[in-house]
């Protein structure tokens, strides 16, 4: 009996690596610490009532962002470990199999569990406030989306200590990810981590489309929407067309692995090339899904800090819509070298180049928004300006990669790695940081410390170029991705430089953590709700926004309604004619979101280990939650009485409405 348990445990838990034992210990200690603090300060009730069961878009947004920062840390540690190995491959800091797991989890964590939740966090916090709504269209679904993401992310991260991490690359090409070459449970964690969080992403996409189409303030026509909202609309539309492809691809891979189906196997009539096509039919739109909202953020910050209207609004909207449409017709550029023939390659090369046109137009429009403006440089604007050269150079290497015959020389080399990190960090990460700094006061009612923020900014930027510029060169010198050792001594110097850059970025991240920590205790309070003298509706209400957002929904007349309103007031004209305060209809908290997430986690864990005794009750739990929600939905609403609203508003605005 004891031997059986021992044997089981040695397979169940990942063993043998001191780094992982270290992680085990720190995970246990951190968990115990959290449990102790919550118990000691009697905060369990607060946590459950105010946060875990909330359906308030602002709180869900904050939870998304918190999770994303934790995942950024995990993905960043992966990156730093890889870079350490590559700087000194002879030291064998990481064994080959461990290295393979780490580059796989780095990619998966950064895209699915860092970029996506950071993006949804910003969607949640900003969109309803920006369009003058009281919440998203489906607040419960929003909570559910978060909990599905969280269950998926936790399931995936668990593979680090239980069962073993996946090691077939972030897109898990079969046959390498099939049972023949990958019999362990790591790939199962991959499938279910992504599958569960992917359903949440799809639901969020639907939620934001409906929110934007149906819940805008009166007078806000589509062409008067703030540009960030437009970018959310474009990204969400792309999500609802792209994510079902991912779901089906993962399902087919699951059927292959679990039931021995032959969709993507070598024998039995399967075809691995089909997987590669399918995964990139999702994968390429995915990169535009994460970058479009960053474009939206820049459009907001550049207008606010140049104190000028956004240049070429209609062009900007058109460019964004075109990008999201064409993004579905470029997928094969990820495998020009698969031998599809000259005509196919030529088609996908040209569609890929075409995307450069609207993207370039957007850059010009941002530049000419600043032209004849009055530019100030607080941290959100610094990230915005740093984005331009980073993205322009990354865009150029992107065009270089799109030239199909030349791509035969770049494909899977470090040139490619440098390119996509340059656009994903220079575009997406810089954009989301700009957004985070810009809307932070709106979320928490205080500004983040600018001095530490500038240190973080410069370290990030220096680290970024020092890390990725050498990678272009080492790629041109024939170094391919996903190798943990190399024989060519010429590559050593460039790799050491790149590693130094990675460490500088790591340091920059620590500065940001310090910045947040410091600012919690010593900060400049956002007393007006409009700390940047901004242009859009979210800055017309107090910071942090009350739970109902707008006591009275304003009537919108123009694109920069809040800016125009301030202008009108300055000219001494009549301010907004806000109607009388009426009772506000609000959704009630719901425990079903977190409970259903927990059941999905249980079901996912069971399916990972092929334990049907666990998977089936888990899935039953999911269905019970659905039924429970269906029969209780009508009780899930309440009204905030007028007196309470008046009290809150008086407190937040110091008496004046």
């Amino acid at each position, binding site marked *: 009996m004891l031997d059986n348990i021992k044997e089981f445990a040695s397979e169940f838990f990942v063993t043998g690596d001191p780094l992982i034992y270290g992680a085990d210990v720190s995970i246990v200690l951190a968990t115990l610490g959290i449990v102790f603090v919550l118990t000691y300060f009697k905060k369990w009730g607060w946590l459950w009532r105010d946060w875990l069961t909330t359906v308030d878009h602002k709180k869900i947004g904050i939870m998304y962002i918190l999770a994303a920062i934790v995942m950024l840390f995990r993905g960043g540690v992966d990156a730093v470990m890889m870079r350490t190995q590559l700087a000194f491959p002879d030291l064998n800091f990481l064994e080959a199999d461990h290295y*393979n797991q780490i580059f796989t989890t780095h990619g998966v964590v950064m895209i699915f569990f860092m970029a996506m939740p950071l993006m949804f966090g910003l969607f949640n916090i900003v969109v309803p406030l920006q369009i003058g709504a009281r919440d998203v269209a489906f607040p419960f679904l929003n909570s559910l989306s978060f909990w599905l993401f969280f269950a998926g992310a936790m399931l995936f991260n668990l593979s680090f200590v239980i069962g073993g991490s996946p090691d077939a690359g972030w897109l898990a090409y079969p046959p390498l990810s099939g049972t023949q070459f990958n019999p362990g449970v790591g790939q199962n964690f991959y499938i279910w981590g992504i599958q569960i969080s992917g359903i949440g992403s799809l639901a969020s996409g639907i939620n934001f489309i409906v929110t934007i189409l149906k819940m805008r303030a009166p007078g806000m026509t589509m062409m008067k929407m703030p540009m960030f909202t437009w970018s959310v609309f474009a990204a969400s539309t792309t999500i609802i067309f792209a994510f079902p492809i991912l779901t089906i691809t993962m399902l087919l891979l699951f059927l292959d692995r679990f039931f021995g189906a032959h969709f993507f196997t070598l024998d039995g009539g399967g075809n691995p090339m089909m997987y590669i096509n399918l995964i990139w039919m999702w994968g390429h739109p995915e990169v535009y899904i994460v970058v479009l909202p960053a474009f939206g953020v820049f459009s907001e910050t550049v207008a606010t800090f140049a104190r*000028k209207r956004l240049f070429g609004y209609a062009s900007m909207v058109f460019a964004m819509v075109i990008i999201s449409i064409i993004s579905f017709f470029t997928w094969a550029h990820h495998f020009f070298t698969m031998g599809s*023939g000259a005509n196919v390659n030529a088609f996908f090369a040209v569609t890929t180049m*075409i995307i450069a046109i609207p993207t370039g137009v957007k850059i010009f429009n941002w530049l000419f928004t600043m032209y004849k403006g009055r530019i100030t440089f607080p941290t959100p604007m610094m990230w915005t300006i740093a984005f331009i*050269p980073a993205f322009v150079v990354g865009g150029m290497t992107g065009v270089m990669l799109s030239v199909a015959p030349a791509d035969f020389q770049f494909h899977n080399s470090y040139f490619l790695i440098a390119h996509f990190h340059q656009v994903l960090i220079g575009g997406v990460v810089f954009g989301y940081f700009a957004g985070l700094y810009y809307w932070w006061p709106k979320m928490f009612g205080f500004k983040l410390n600018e001095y530490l923020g500038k240190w973080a900014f410069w370290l990030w930027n220096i680290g970024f*170029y020092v890390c990725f*510029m050498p990678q272009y*060169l080492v790629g041109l*010198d024939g170094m391919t991705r996903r190798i943990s050792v190399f024989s060519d001594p010429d590559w050593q110097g460039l790799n050491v*430089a790149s590693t130094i850059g990675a460490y500088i970025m790591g340091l920059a991240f620590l500065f940001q953590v310090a910045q947040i920590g410091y600012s919690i205790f010593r900060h400049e309070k956002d007393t007006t709700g409009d700390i940047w003298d901004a242009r859009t509706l979210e800055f017309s209400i107090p910071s942090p926004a009350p739970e109902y957002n707008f006591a009275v929904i304003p009537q919108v007349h123009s694109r920069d309604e809040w800016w125009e309103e301030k202008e009108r007031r300055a000219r001494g004209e009549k301010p907004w004619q806000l109607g009388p305060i009426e009772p506000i209809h609000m959704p009630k908290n719901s425990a079903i979101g977190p409970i259903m997430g927990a059941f999905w986690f249980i079901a996912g864990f069971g399916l990972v280990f092929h334990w049907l005794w666990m998977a089936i009750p888990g899935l039953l739990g999911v269905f019970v939650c659905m039924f429970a929600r269906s029969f209780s939905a009508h009780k899930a609403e309440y009204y905030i009485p007028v007196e309470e609203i008046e009290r809150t508003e008086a407190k937040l605005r110091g008496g004046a409405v």
Partner: protein
Amino acid sequence: MSKKPRSLVRAAFSAVTLVMTMLLLSGCGNYMVLDPKGPIAEKQLDLIIITVILCSIIIVPVLIITFIIVWRYRATNKKADYKPEWAHSNLLETIWWGIPIVIIIVLAVITVRYTHELEPAKALASDKEEVTVQVVSLNWKWLFLYPEEGIATVNTLTIPEDRPVRFEITADSPMNSFWIPELGGQIYAMSGMSMALHLQADEPGTYFGTAANFTGEHFENMNFQVNATSDAEYEQWIQEAKSSPNTITDESYEEMSKPTEKEEPTLYSSFPEGIYERIVTKYMHDGAELHQHGSASADETDAAADTANANSEEDSSAHKGH
């Protein structure tokens, strides 16, 4: 802006400038892709240079304009114009839709032409006889078969200089990619497929060959030396291989195809006839015939695809591209 951040800005600028200068200086070294030794790699480099020049027409002005605008319209510069309402200009927007469109059209035309010209399955024009090498990706080593000579090697490749080489590439492992950067771009190695890649070394030398698509645990050990030699030395090398005590048999191939961590370069004096074709068709049903993926002439490709269609419906789905 307070004093401190400004000195921070200056320190940051000088650090970045320093690193960039170092990179540019080290950029004078011989990077494989930028130092081609064969006609394919040369044309690919031409194409890379054309792309960089075309992109620079936009990129360089954009970077300069960015700097000028950000500097000139900083809030502390009270001399600059301020037009907060100016947000539209048909002329300007036409210009910056127009210029990228023109550049992309030019680049697209060039790309389409080169895509056909550099189609890897196309034989190279040469008055000298072509050499055929069959390449098999195994876990974790490369097997090279010389069907014309009846010899084979593992993890080392010798080819005659100045003669076109036709590589026929497949895998008995997860999907890989076969790449010799100094001679030309890569192509995937896939099971159940034979991919053609035509390369040529213009001068004798030792070149770096590598695997470019991750195939599992010891993928990093899948690189090999490519020796381009004179015709005489090539003949001599073949004799050397023929006198090697090592041979490949069907049984020893079974052993060889099992995963091994790292293999030293080895010569084999013989291999069973038709082993390459058997490796390619190993995963097909009903003994579907070998079909060349992207062979030299369009007719051949069609014929091969037709055979595949006739034999196996599933297989045909992979060839809709033709």
